[in-house]
Structures are given as C-alpha cells and as structure tokens.
C-alpha cells in the first residue's frame, strides 16, 4: 500500500477527534475507577487477613464472582440488566461501577499477597514496641507492602486503561467508539484502528514511566 496524501490527511485529521474522547472519557474513567477500585481492594485485603468471619465470606464471594465472570458480561448486567430490576444507571456511572468492582476484586489479591509477603519479624518488632495492630499495619507493614505491590498494581492500572474500551458497548462515546464511527464512514479500518491502538499505547507508556519513577522512589532504604 502506498501511503498517499489523503491517508496522511486522514491520520492527522482524525487524530484530535480520537484523542479528545480519550482525554474526556478514557483517562477520567480510568483514574476514577482505579481510585475507587483501590479503596475497595485495600478494604477487602484487610478483611481477608483479619479474623472477621462473616465479612471474610462476603468478600470471598465478591472476589469469586468478579474474577469468574467476563468484565463485558458484568458491564451488560449493570447497564442492560439492572433496569429490569428497577435500577437504571447512566452509561458512565454503570462503567465506573463495573470497572471499580473489577479492579477491587483483582487488586485485593495483590494487596493481600503484598501484606503477607512482609516478614513476621516486622510484626513482632512493631508489637514488641507496644504498637497496636493498626499502628503496626499503618507504620510498618503498609509502607513495605506498597513497594511490593507497585508492579502488579500497575498491571491492573494499565489493564484498566484498555478495558475502558469496553464501555463503547454501553453507549459511552469513548475513544474506541469514536474510532469505529470514523472507520465506518471512511472505510479505512486498518489505519484508524492502528491509530487508536497507538493512542492507547501512548497512555500506557506514560503509566509505565510513572511506575518506574514510583519504584525508584519507594526503593529508598531497601535492597532492590
């Protein structure tokens, strides 16, 4: 295929049209869902390592359901299914709920593993100073567990950036949906889908760089 002027023009002209919903939808959707998901994940992880039997069962059930069903199915249930039960949600809100629940379930396991990876001598050292469970957790364990959990958490974070494209299925006019529309109009699917893929790649590259910086910052005082 010879790259002709019309194609270059198409790439240039569509770039902003595709990037704009990325800035308006993809990025905020990712950031908000990840923040809420992380909060859920921390709470679930703390419950999982506690002795709260009933809450442990409930959270295990939640993780089991979310991890065992496709994200797309969850999105459809929340957006298309729930109205039958009398709960109608805006597409964006439905997306945020689905993505947050998803991140919460997966990352709770990451955080639980990170907390359990800290040597029990650290607990004992804190406790022998007379610290309470929560003081040891907050001052000693969490700071060390954070470092351990950065790489797998960024896996989830980066995964979420791409998963937001699933919101196109419930009428959220994010990057992928906009690209589909242009492709349908111009008959240039190869060019346009590569273009949107490239923009996702750029978003994820930025996150990878942030991950590297975070790892360097948190490695202070610790052997890599």
């Amino acid at each position, binding site marked *: 295929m010879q790259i002709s002027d019309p194609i270059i023009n198409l790439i240039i002209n569509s770039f902003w049209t595709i990037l704009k919903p990325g800035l308006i939808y993809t990025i905020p959707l990712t950031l908000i869902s990840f923040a809420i998901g992380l909060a859920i994940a921390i709470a679930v992880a703390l419950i999982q390592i506690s002795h709260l039997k009933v809450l442990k069962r409930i959270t295990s059930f939640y993780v089991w359901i979310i991890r065992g069903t496709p994200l797309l199915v969850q999105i459809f249930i929340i957006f298309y299914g729930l109205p039958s039960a009398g709960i109608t949600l805006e597409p964006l809100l439905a997306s945020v709920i689905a993505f947050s629940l998803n991140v919460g379930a997966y990352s709770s396991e990451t955080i639980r593993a990170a907390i359990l990876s800290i040597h029990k001598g650290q607990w*004992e050292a804190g406790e022998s100073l007379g610290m*309470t469970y929560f003081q040891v957790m907050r001052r000693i364990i969490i700071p060390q567990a954070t470092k351990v959990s950065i790489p797998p958490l960024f896996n989830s974070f980066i995964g979420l950036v791409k998963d937001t494209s699933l919101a196109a299925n419930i009428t959220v006019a994010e990057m992928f949906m906009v690209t589909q529309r242009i492709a349908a109009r111009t008959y240039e699917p190869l060019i346009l889908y590569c273009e949107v893929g490239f923009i996702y790649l750029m978003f994820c590259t930025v996150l990878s760089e942030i991950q590297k910086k975070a790892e360097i910052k948190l490695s202070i005082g610790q052997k890599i």
Partner: protein
Amino acid sequence: MFEIKNLYKSFGENEILKNISLMIKPNHTTVIIGPSGSGKTTLLRCINLLEIPNAGEVDLNGERVGFNEGKVSKKDILKLRKKTGMVFQGFNLFPHKTALENIIEGPITVLKQAKDEAIKEGMRLLKKVGLEDKKDSYPHELSGGQQQRIAIARALGMKPEILLFDEPTSALDPELEIEVLSLIKELSEENRTIVIVTHQMSFAKEVGDNIVFIDKGEIIEQGTYEKLSESPNARIRQFLNSFN
C-alpha cells in the same frame, strides 16, 4: 519484682513449657541457657506476650496478667509490652526507616513523645551504642553488628523496665559478635533488669547473675555459673563443658 508463675505453653499437641516459675531479680542479669528446642526462646517470648501462654501468670512489677486457656485482653498485652524491650536474633529493624527513625518510631507512635524530643533522645541512644554517624543510614547499609546495636538502641528508646535479648548474636559473624556482646555487657553493668537467651557460655558466665538451665520445657536448675558448673546433675555439667 518480676515473676513468672506456673506458666504452660503448647503448640498444638506439643508441650513447650511445663509449669515454669521464675523470679527475675530487678537490676540483675538473668541468662537462660539450654539445648536447642528446650523452650528458652518461647519462655522469653511469653514474657512480652509475643507468645500467649496457655496458663499461668506474668507479673511485671505489680502488673499482673493471668492466662486462662490462652485468653488475654489486648489491653493487658499492650500493658506488658510497654514495660519490656525486645532484641531479636534477626534484628528485625524496619528496612524502610533510617537508624534514627527506627529508634524514634516507638517513642513517637506509642509513647506520643514530641518529635524533637524523641530525636534528641534518639541521638543520645545512637551515641550510647557508638553509631552517631550512622543516624541517616538505612539498615541494609549497616553491618549485622551495627544493625543489632541499632536494634538495642530501639529497645532502649522505650525506656523498658526489663530488657529481653533473644540470642542476640546468633546471626552474627564471630568478629561482629564482640561489639554486640560488649554493648550488652555495658548495659548489664548499668544494673538494668535483663533477661538473655544465649548459646554463648563464656558470655553467660561473664554477665549472668542468675543462670537458668532449661531442658524439655522445664527449669532444671538455676544459680550462679559456679553453682551450675558444680551441679550434681551430670546433664548440666556436660552441657556447660561442651562449650568450653
């Protein structure tokens, strides 16, 4: 007076401590010795409740805590822990904190000391253990001996009434042992109340005011090193001799 009365501890079916009663003399150094697996470390860990005894009583200077089927309130646990300072075999310094931060963590978080006050006291302790110049070093930048000295300073920072040492030099190379042992000796000479679990017989002889021999979870005999070395019990004489 510090006292342990009729203490029992089992892990599952395994009975580790059987009816241990021990008086710990204030301002003296008590050394616990015995073969591997005899229960000496468990006994030490029962004093600050890192292990919860199944039955018995710990009385630290009037703070009595009794154990009934291994049950004890969180309040009682914290009460005893605030009176004791513990130095571990594996140091257990906080790797994400500098030497000074390790020392001031307890005073700030637990004793609610003001930060500048805690830092002042922390610097005094660093000087005491001879590591003033390492205040901003992280644990992995220090030798094992230096880490253990910081761990001792951390325990001292809580102004404990009783200092517990769990095989404090077992993880150290012989040349690094000396610096830690001489520091502990110095603390012993300051007439602090100290309980040490150790395999270092020469050190036990040197600092121990009361040496307690434990075997299979029971106190077999206690007294000065001289008394134990002349014990009618051949097992004890043999144990002491095996280290000479």
